[in-house]
C-alpha cells in the first residue's frame, strides 16, 4: 500500500485516492496548432523515476493533489494541493 499524506486529511491509504496522471502538462492556447494540442493531450514523458502526478482524494475530501512520487520505488517526496491558492491557505493554517 502506498500512503499519501493528504494536506487536508492527513496520511491515508492510496486506495482512498484515484490516480490522475502527469501533473506537468501545460495546455496550449485555444488557437494553438493541432500538433501542439496532440502533444499535450496524447503524448507523455512517462518518467521512470520521480515525477509530479495528480491524485484525487475521491473517497476522502475530494480535493485534487500534486504528488511527487517515484514510479520505480513508489516513494513519495511531497504532496501539495493542486490549486496554488489552496496551497497558500494550507500554509497559513499551519
Amino acid at each position: 500500500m502506498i500512503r499519501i499524506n493528504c494536506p487536508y486529511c492527513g496520511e491515508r491509504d492510496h486506495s482512498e485516492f484515484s490516480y490522475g496522471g502527469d501533473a506537468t502538462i501545460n495546455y496550449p492556447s485555444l488557437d494553438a496548432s493541432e500538433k501542439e494540442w496532440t502533444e499535450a493531450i496524447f503524448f507523455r514523458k512517462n518518467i521512470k523515476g520521480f515525477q509530479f502526478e495528480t491524485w484525487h482524494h475521491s473517497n476522502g475530501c475530494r480535493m485534487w493533489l500534486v504528488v511527487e512520487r517515484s514510479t520505480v520505488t513508489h516513494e513519495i517526496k511531497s504532496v501539495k494541493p493542486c490549486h496554488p491558492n489552496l496551497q497558500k491557505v494550507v500554509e497559513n493554517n499551519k
Partner: protein
Amino acid sequence: MTKFNAWNVIKNGLNGQSYWTRQWRDPEPKSSYDIVIIGGGLHGLATAYYLAKNHNIKNVAVLEKGWIGGGNAGRNTTIVRSNYMMPGNHEFYEHSLKLWENLSHELNYNVMFSQRAHVSLFHSPGAKDSISRIYNIMRLHGTDAELWDLKTLKKKIPHLNYHNSRFPILGAAVQKRAGNARHDAVAWGYARAADTLGVDILQNCEVTGFTRKNGNIESIQTSRGIIKGKKIGFAVAGNTSVLWQMAELGNLPIESHKLQAFVSEAVKPLLDQVVVYGVGGAHFYISQSDKGSMVFGGDLDWYKSYAQRGNLPMVQDVAEAAMAIFPSLGRIRLLRHWAGVMDMTMDGSFFICKTPISNLYLNAGWNYGGFKASPASGWYFADLIANESPHNYVQNHNLERFEKGINIDERGAGPDPKLHG
C-alpha cells in the same frame, strides 16, 4: 539443434537421453548485423523468426537485457483470442489466432495451445446488445463467434454463481477457437526456431545508449560491447519510453502501468474454458492450467509504475471478483502472484510503425493484449522492417494517428491510458 520427432524420442530413450543438443546457442555478439531487435520477449523473438523465415534475412540479433522468458513473456495470463471489432485490429488478431493454430508444428515445439473457448459473461440486456454487436462484426469478417443462452452456459459451466441478484448472469458471448497456451514454451519455441535459422540471441545484453550518425542510429552501446545494426527494431513493451528517450526522440502516447496475475495451488479439473467477468467496476478473467492451477487476473493497479510488483488493494479486488462469480474458489490458496509492466497507450491499440529515425522501427503499446498478439506482431513487424512500409492491417497503427484523428479505440475510453483494459 535436435529436432523433436518420434524417431529422436525413441533414440534418446534408448540412449539415456544423451543426444539432445541445447535449445539455442549462446553466441558472442558480432560487431554488426543487418537487423538488431532490442527486446528478447515474445514479440522480439517472433520478429527475428519471421525475418529469417518469411524474408530470408538471417544476419539478425535479438538483444535481451535479462534472460529469455524472464520479462513479460512469463508475466501474463496466457489468454489467446481474437474478439476485436475495429478495422485493422480484427484482421490483425484473427491472423494471430490462425498463426497460433499451427504454431506448435511451425516451431517444432509444443506450445500447448488449447482452444478451449473464451467465455465473456454478460449481466444486463444492454451488455448483451453491446457484445452482440462486437461478435456480429467478428462473424461478418469470418471469425467464429456465438452467443450462449443461460441454459447452454449452465450446462457448460455449472459451478458459476447463478444466484447473484445484483449482477445476474444472462448468458455469454463465446469464441470457441480462443484459449490458452504455455507462455514459456512460446518464448523458448520462437528462440529455438529463430536460432536454428541463424539468428543470434544475446542474453544479459542491456542497451545503454545509441550513437547517431547522419540522423540514423549507427551503433548500439550494450553491456556486452558496441553492436552495429543497419536496421534496428524496438520490441520492449513496458520500457518503450525509456529506450525512446535514450534515442532522444521525446515523448510517446504511452504510460507504463502494471498488471497483476495470480496462480493458485493445483486442483482437480474444474474449468474447461477461459471465463471473463466484467461488470460494476470489477474485471476478472480465469482459466485452469494443465497442471491444475487456477490462473487469473484483474485490472491494472490504477497508477503509473515501472515496478514489477503488485499492490494489495488490487489483490483484494480480484479476490472479491473471484468470490462474486466463482464462490467455490473461496478456500483455494494462492501459490504466487506477480506484476508485469505494460505499455498502456492513449487509445488502447498498439504501434507497429516507422519512427522519426529512418533506420529505427517501433513495436510497442500492447496494453493488456501482448501475449495473444505475439505471432502476428512478429509477422507484421518483420514485414515492416524488411519491406520498409506497413502492411494494410497495421497502416494506422502508427504515432501519427492521434494528430490525424484516426484513434483505434476499441473501448471508446478516450485518452487516458489506464482506462484501456
